[in-house]
């Protein structure tokens, strides 16, 4: 039951993009086509889950025992950057098909603030390892969900006539606002 609450709250109620504003750059950047959005989403689910597990272990087995938690930010960002590189190399060797699908998105993920954000959030929320993993996974699923929905909206936006000054990013932001408004309807659920 507890896990169920974490999952629902991370995917719908506290959606990482639409209510916490993390990962807005890829949200606006790679949301012009549904297929690329789904590819990016898959890569993000993979990296966020893995990065959260690794940073959780580093926090509790290296930083806390050595009393150097003030190095948190530096340690995390280095681990995430190294991890993304490593995932890329392993994927290339082990599963070329998956690498083909996710490859181009992997380097972009290092600068996705959702990854570092989730890693820090699970420490602040005092989750244990299993809860952290569940939270990270469902947060990433929430990211993918909003990204794919938004890409669907933008595919339709490309077809309609928009006033001059609103073309491109402004109208995309306003659609995102309306989407966020729709997601607020979930707020009573948890």
């Amino acid at each position, binding site marked *: 039951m507890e896990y169920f609450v974490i999952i629902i709250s991370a995917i719908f109620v506290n959606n990482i993009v*639409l209510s916490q*504003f993390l990962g807005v750059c890829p949200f606006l950047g790679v949301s012009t086509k549904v297929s690329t959005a789904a590819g990016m989403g898959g890569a993000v689910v993979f990296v966020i889950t893995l990065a959260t597990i690794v940073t959780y272990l580093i926090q509790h087995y290296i930083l806390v025992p050595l009393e150097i938690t003030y190095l948190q930010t*530096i340690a995390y*960002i280095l681990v995430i950057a190294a991890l993304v590189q490593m995932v890329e190399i392993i994927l290339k060797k082990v599963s070329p098909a998956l690498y083909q699908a996710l490859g181009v998105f992997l380097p972009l993920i290092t600068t996705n*603030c959702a990854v570092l954000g989730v890693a*820090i959030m699970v420490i602040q929320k005092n989750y244990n390892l299993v809860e952290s993993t569940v939270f990270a996974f469902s947060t990433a699923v929430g990211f993918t969900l909003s990204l794919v929905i938004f890409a669907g909206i933008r595919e339709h936006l490309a077809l309609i006539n928009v006033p001059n*000054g609103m073309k491109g990013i*402004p109208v995309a*932001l306003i659609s995102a606002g309306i989407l966020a*408004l729709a997601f607020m309807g979930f707020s009573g659920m948890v």
Partner: protein
Amino acid sequence: MNQVKNFTKGFLKENPVFILLLGMCPTLGTTTSAINGLGMGLATAFVLTMSNIVISMVKNFIPNKVRIPSFIVIIASFVTVVDLSMAAYLPALHEQLGLFIPLIVVNCIVLGRAESFASKNGVFSSLVDGLGMGLGFAFALTILGSVREILGSGKVFGFDMHIFPKGVDGILVFVLAPGAFLALGYLISIVNKINKKSI
């Protein structure tokens, strides 16, 4: 290169938020009020200026292949400095901005300026560039924060502007998440309009 131009380009012509669309996460996440926007903007400006200075100083010692990780470590050090000093001297603001302070590390503007400007230019130009871009970012965040605060609660920096009739507190949605997207969308369209006229 004209230093004045170098400094002022960050405000409108190459404004990181309105034109370059970098650093959207803190822009949307921290601008619930003008003061929060200003605080976040100044924290980012400090990190941007300091990391620009240091990177332009050490650029000749860093091998090209490991430059991005080295830049990130330098940036992360300054972010830690800001994080700890804010927690010590401005605990209320630190509490409000929360997660977004450590996330300055992954703000695209900081790494973007390090890579595209500080790694190619001298110390003084990099300082001016960092300061200009940083203050431009702070300027954009303060404007967005003011717009959201005035529509959301009828106040700016906590002062009541009396724009709403008695008994109406404001349009709550502008303080909440959707309002951030809406307000930024309209602001960018206005800036687009102004820029097109001046060309």
